[in-house]
C-alpha cells in the first residue's frame, strides 16, 4: 500500500483572516472554507461536487459514511431537541445520498456544570430516535470542557449506511427538463429555533420539522429509483443554498415557481416581519430531489400517499438558463434570482 499522500504544498485559496460565524452558517462562506481550505489540503485536488455523505469502497463493498456536529441553542425547542436532531440529522445525510443508516457513533462535548437531568433527557431522545429509525448506536466518546468553554453540550454523530440498490446521486446527471421535488413545507425548523431563542418577542404555534426522511426517500426510490438524479436535505442555508450548489455543480438553471413552494402561513408571516426569505431558512426534516420528467408523476404521487408526505410538491424545473443560478418566478410574471445565503440570516429593521 502506498504511503498516505501529503498535500502540504497545495495552495490554499481561502483568504479570510479569521473564522467568522458565517463560515459555519452553511451558505457561501461555508462553501468557500470547504473548497478553499479543507478540500485542497485534505483531498489534494478538488474532488468534484461535494455531497451529504461519501460512498467508500472497502474490499468490493460500498458503504456510505458521513458525520455531523450539532450545536443548537436552545437545546430543546418545540418539536425536537439536540439529541433527536443529532440522530435524525445524520440519518438524513445518509438518506439523501441514497443510503440507509445502519449504525451511528456518538461523541459528546459537555460543559462542566451541565445538569445530569439535561444530559439524560438528550440521551433518551437519541435512543428513542435511533430505535424508531432502526439504527444501532454502536460506540461513543465523551469529553468535558471547563465551565464557560462550551455552551452546555455539543454532539457529533458519525453514521455508516448501506447504499440502496437502483439509485445513483450525481449532479452531473441532471438534465434540462428534470423536475425539482420538495418533500414538505420549508422554514419550520429555522423559524422555530429563531422564536425559541426568545430574543424577538414573537410567539407562534410552530414546531420544528425534525424527523428521519429515510422512509420518504425509500418510497421515492421504490417509485422512481432510475429517475432520481440528485437529492439533498436543505438544512443550514435552506433550500436556496442547496439548489444554488446544484446549479453551480451541473451548470444549469433551477427555476422555481413561487406559488408551488409549500410554506406555512406562520413561517411566511415571520419571514415577512423579519425580512427573511423562507428559501434561506434551515430545515431538518425535508429533502429536495431532482427527478427526470417521465418519473416525476410517479415520484410525487408515491410520496404524497406515504405518511408525512402529503405536502410534497413539484416546485420547479431544470432549465438551460439562467445557467448556474436559481430563479424564482412569481404568479404575476416577475422573477428574481435567489442566491446562496450570505452568512447567518439577520432580522431587518424596516
Amino acid at each position, binding site marked *: 500500500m502506498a504511503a498516505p499522500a501529503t498535500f502540504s504544498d497545495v495552495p490554499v485559496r481561502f483568504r479570510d483572516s479569521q473564522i467568522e460565524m*458565517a463560515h459555519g452558517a452553511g451558505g457561501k462562506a461555508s462553501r468557500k472554507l470547504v473548497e478553499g481550505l479543507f478540500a485542497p489540503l485534505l483531498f489534494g485536488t478538488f474532488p468534484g461536487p461535494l455531497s451529504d455523505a461519501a460512498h467508500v469502497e472497502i474490499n468490493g463493498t460500498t458503504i456510505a459514511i458521513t458525520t455531523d456536529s450539532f450545536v443548537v441553542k436552545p437545546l430543546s425547542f418545540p418539536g425536537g431537541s439536540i439529541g433527536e436532531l443529532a440522530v435524525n440529522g445524520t440519518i438524513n445525510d445518509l438518506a439523501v445520498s441514497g443510503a440507509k443508516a445502519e449504525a451511528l457513533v456518538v461523541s459528546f462535548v459537555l460543559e462542566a456544570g451541565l445538569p445530569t437531568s439535561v444530559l439524560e433527557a438528550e440521551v433518551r431522545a437519541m435512543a428513542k430516535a435511533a430505535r424508531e429509525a432502526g439504527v444501532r448506536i454502536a460506540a461513543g466518546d465523551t469529553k468535558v470542557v471547563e465551565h464557560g468553554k462550551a455552551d452546555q453540550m455539543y454532539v457529533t454523530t458519525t453514521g455508516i449506511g448501506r447504499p440502496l440498490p437502483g439509485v445513483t446521486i450525481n449532479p452531473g446527471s441532471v438534465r434540462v427538463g428534470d423536475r425539482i421535488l420538495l418533500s414538505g413545507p420549508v422554514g419550520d425548523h429555522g423559524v422555530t429555533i429563531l422564536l425559541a431563542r426568545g430574543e*424577538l418577542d414573537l410567539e407562534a404555534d410552530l414546531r420544528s420539522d425534525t424527523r428521519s426522511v429515510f422512509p420518504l426517500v425509500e418510497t421515492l426510490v421504490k417509485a422512481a429509483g432510475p429517475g432520481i438524479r440528485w437529492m439533498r436535505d436543505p438544512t443550514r442555508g435552506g433550500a436556496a443554498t442547496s439548489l444554488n450548489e446544484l446549479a453551480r455543480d451541473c451548470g444549469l438553471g433551477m427555476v422555481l415557481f413561487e406559488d408551488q413552494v409549500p410554506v406555512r402561513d406562520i413561517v411566511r408571516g415571520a419571514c415577512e416581519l423579519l*425580512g427573511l426569505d423562507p428559501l434561506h431558512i434551515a430545515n431538518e426534516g425535508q429533502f429536495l430531489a431532482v427527478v427526470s420528467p417521465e418519473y416525476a408523476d410517479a415520484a410525487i404521487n408515491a410520496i404524497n400517499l406515504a405518511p408525512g408526505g402529503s405536502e410534497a410538491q413539484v416546485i420547479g424545473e431544470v432549465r438551460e438558463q439562467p445557467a448556474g*443560478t436559481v430563479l424564482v418566478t412569481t404568479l404575476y410574471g416577475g*422573477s428574481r434570482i435567489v442566491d446562496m445565503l450570505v452568512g447567518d440570516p*439577520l432580522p*431587518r429593521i424596516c
Partner: protein
Amino acid sequence: MRFVDEFRQPGLISKTADEIRRLAGTERHYRMMEVCGGHTHAIYRFGLKDILPENIELIHGPGCPVCVLPMGRIDDGLAIARQPGVIFAAFGDMMRVPGTQGSPLEHKARGMDVRIVYSPSDALKLARLNPDKHVMFFAIGFETTAPSTALTMIRAQAEGIRNFSVFCNHVTIIPAIRAILDSPDMRLDAFIGPGHVSTVIGCRPYEWIAHNEHKPIVVSGFEPLDMLQSIVMLLRQLKAGEAKVENQYKRVVPWEGNRAALRAMAEVFQLRPYFEWRGLGFISQSALRINDKYAEFDAEQRFVVPGIRVTDPKAAQCGEVLKGVLKPHQCKLFGRECTPEHPVGALMVSTEGSCAAYHSYEHRKAAMVTLTA
C-alpha cells in the same frame, strides 16, 4: 396571509400593469425615484422590473439608513464598545456593515460583546439584565425608527437606569431628498414616497416637492400592487401636467402622521447643524442628536469618541449610483472588488442598498440577457 396576499393577487397585478402600459405609452421616458430602501428591495424581490414597460425607469434613492452611514461612525461606535464592560447592541442590519477594522460581527468573532436586538427597548432590557455592564445601543434609521429610540430613552430616564446609552445616527429624509433635487445631474420626473417614514411624519412635509419643484410624489406601500398602483397615480399626474402629494398607503399612513411619535422625537432629539452622508457628503440639518435633557443617555457625551473620518475608496462610485446617475452594475467595482460578502461601498452593505439588491436578485439575469441576445 391577510394584509399580504390581497396585495399580491396576480389578476389585479396584471390589470394594473396593463393600465401602466396604457398610460406610459411609448413616446417618452419616465424617471421615477423610489426614495425608500424598502421599496428598492421590494422592486427586486418581486421582480417588478419584469412587469414594467421599458420607458419607466426606477431610480433608487437615498432611503437606506445603513447605506448612507459614513464608515467613520461605525468606527466611532466600535471604539466605544472596545472600552471594558460595554455591550454593543444594534439591529441585525448593522452587523455586517464594515468599519475600517471590520464589521460588528467580525468584532464579535474576536470577542467583543455584540448583541443583535430587534428594537431599542430590547437593548434597554439588556441593560436591566446586566446591571454590571454598560449597554450602548447603536441607533440608526430615519423617522421610522427614531421614535422608538426616543421612547426608550424616555423610559430609561423614568426608570432611573444608569447603564444605558444611545450612539445616535438617526437621520431625516427631507434634507436628503432636497440634496438629491439640488444635484445638477439629476433629472427626475416623479417620486415614489417612503411608506414607513410617512407613518411617522405624514404627507405634509412633501408638499414643497410638489409646489416648489413641480414633481408629483405618491406615498406608497411595499407590496407589488401598492407600488404598481403608485406608479399609475404618478403617471396620471404627469399626463395631466399636475404635481401633487398623494397617499396610496392610506391603510397605514395618516396624512398628518403620528403625533405621539413626533412628540416623543421632539422631547428627546434636536437637529444637528450638519451630518455626513455616505455618497452625498455633508448635509445641513439632516440628522438628529440627543438634547441636553437626555444627555445622560448620549454615548457621544458619556464616552470619548475619536470622531474618525474615513473617505470612501475613490474608485467606488456610490454617490453617482445613489443619485441615479449610474446603474449599480455600471460602477467600476460592482461584482468584482465590491460584493455583498465584501462590500467596499455603502450601497452593497444592506439588502436595501440598491447595489446589494441588484447583485442578489438581478445582475445575473442581466448577464443572461446579454448572453442570449
